[in-house]
């Protein structure tokens, strides 16, 4: 996963600037990747069962947050409802398991059902501009909890559904926690690879241009509406798949998952990790799982204070999020070490409160906007 050719994130200010990797950086990336894969493979053999459990949960949330990243970070449509899709996926997985479905069938149900729901929600919802989409999506988790309780025959109501599955097959010589870790991390890795393929090519470029300028998108033959719906559907798919992974690790689906604060905190973790960055989603997964753990060591009610403060801090000082900040730092260090100057222009534009593509360019040469006054009252051509 080199960063070359990745459609760049955020002309909106919550996104890191991406530059093509220099040769030393590319080498460094490959080395880091190989080391990372080895570490990921070896960790569960020596770690405690609880650590393996936590890391598996990290992988599940990283997948859910990657989905959120695709719709919010890459396609620019803020969703406050991702936990609803994760919850739906968890229930679907638990349903499949308790009804004796094969694992693959459970997975497909867990991922595709939320995707269909996401599609149905998205078709009207993405017609909303700006932050109005967030107002629709915020309703999903709030509705999901009473719905889950209402359909208690299927969901187990407030008690939730316990499942007992995903045991290590006899003969592999692994404990359950290790086996689950490998299964979950492997599926997560595949989902990340697919996600990466989506965000770097034709589809990712379309997302990026829809995010930054819909007029340009349509001039290039890209239907903003269709791509927003697509992004939302993919996000729901990832949310559902993450729900499956969650149930595989936790062995439990309950109304605590499709919760309002879960969705909000996922978005917070994503922004802190870094919008429109694959690594950002991984960082966000860790953040989501471990912040409550560390905060809980002090006082459980401090988790949200920490989250809120960290999020504001990121917004104020490192708009690229942790991954953006780290990658900038790495570039700077690599530049020093290998005698190359850091890029002349830094991300000062990203700290500019103006959204660069829209506001700045609209006003860039006000002399030259004969239609400025007209278009402010202009009709909008409806996109079907």
């Amino acid at each position: 996963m080199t960063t070359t050719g990745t459609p760049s994130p955020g002309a909106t200010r919550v996104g890191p600037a991406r530059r093509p990797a220099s040769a030393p950086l590319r080498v460094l990336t490959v080395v880091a990747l190989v080391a990372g894969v080895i570490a990921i493979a070896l960790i569960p053999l020596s770690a405690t069962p609880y650590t393996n459990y936590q890391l598996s949960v990290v992988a599940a949330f990283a997948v859910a947050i990657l989905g959120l990243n695709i719709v919010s970070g890459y396609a620019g449509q803020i969703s406050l409802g991702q936990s609803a899709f994760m919850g739906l996926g968890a229930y679907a997985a638990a349903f499949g398991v308790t009804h004796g479905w094969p694992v693959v069938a459970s997975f497909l149900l867990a991922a595709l059902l939320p995707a269909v729901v996401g599609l149905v929600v998205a078709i009207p919802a993405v017609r909303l501009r700006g932050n109005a989409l967030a107002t629709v999506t915020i309703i999903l988790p709030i509705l999901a909890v009473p719905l889950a309780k209402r359909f208690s025959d299927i969901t187990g109501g407030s008690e939730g559904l316990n499942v007992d599955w995903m045991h290590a097959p006899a003969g592999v010589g692994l404990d359950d926690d290790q086996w689950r870790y490998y299964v979950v991390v492997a599926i997560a890795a595949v989902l990340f690879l697919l996600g990466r393929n989506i965000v770097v090519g034709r589809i990712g470029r379309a997302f990026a241009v829809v995010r930054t300028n819909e007029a340009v998108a349509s001039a290039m033959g890209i239907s903003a509406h269709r791509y927003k719906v697509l992004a939302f559907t993919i996000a729901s798919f990832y949310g559902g798949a993450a729900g499956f992974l969650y149930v595989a690790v936790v062995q439990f689906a309950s109304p605590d998952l499709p919760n309002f604060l879960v969705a909000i905190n996922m978005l917070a973790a994503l922004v802190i990790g870094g919008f429109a960055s694959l690594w950002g989603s991984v960082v966000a997964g860790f953040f989501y799982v471990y912040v409550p753990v560390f905060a809980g060591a002090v006082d459980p009610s401090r988790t949200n204070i920490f989250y809120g403060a960290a999020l504001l801090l990121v917004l104020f000082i490192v708009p690229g999020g942790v991954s953006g900040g780290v990658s900038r730092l790495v570039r700077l260090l690599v530049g020093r070490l290998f005698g190359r100057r850091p890029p002349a222009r830094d991300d000062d534009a990203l700290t500019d409160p103006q959204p660069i593509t829209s506001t700045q360019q609209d006003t860039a040469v006000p002399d030259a906007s004969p239609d400025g006054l007209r278009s402010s009252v202009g009709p909008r051509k409806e996109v079907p």
Partner: protein
Amino acid sequence: MTSRLSVRDLSLHFGGIQVLDSVGLAVEPDTIVGLVGPNGAGKTSLFNCISGHYRPTSGSILVDGVPTLHRPPHRMAELGLSRTFQHPALQLDASVLDNVLIGAHTRLRGGALSWALRLPFTISGERRARQRAGELLDHLGLAGVADRPAGSLAHGLHKRVELARALLSEPRLLLLDEPAGGLPHAEVEQLIETIRAIRTEFGLTIVIVEHHMGLISALTDRVVVLVQGRKLLEGTALEAQRHPLVVEAYLGRTAA
């Protein structure tokens, strides 16, 4: 032979304001037509109608004989139409190459699933698009900055990146909205050469909105003068510049 672009009796109202009033225009294949007129004459609005971004109040628009009035803007590209914008609309922190590659969207096939799975045709398509984009960047003198973030480029280069993006969609009809806006004189000369070259190479029909009369005179076969949303005159650039009504429209009655 049908006109590449034919605009008939086009009117556009915004609220109570009449922006375009029965404008007619025919652009024959392989010609360059200039659209000139003072600020607020409705030139960009006419462009926005042609590209489908505005829906005119009445009239008709045909591209290669195909009526386009009820097409959403994102379905204009398939008719071979592409455009640039008055204020270059680039993704400033994406690389120049990535900006240009957006133009290849309609030339590439496959949905999210094909691309996620990296099906072979997506890989070969992407390779071809990158190669084509590379050639275009070369052509427009942008090869050296292909990997730079677009935002780090000088303003004048933004216009060229936009041009490359529009060309990558392989249009037959290209709408250029103030390509020389804000460029120093020396760069305008270059731009004229560039547009001449791409026009021949790609067999393009071009409509240009431009205030820079030098560019209009050098490039266009005909110009249409719009004033107050109406077509005042159609003729050669020289005729237009000398026409008393045009002089009056720009400089006022006393100067004419």
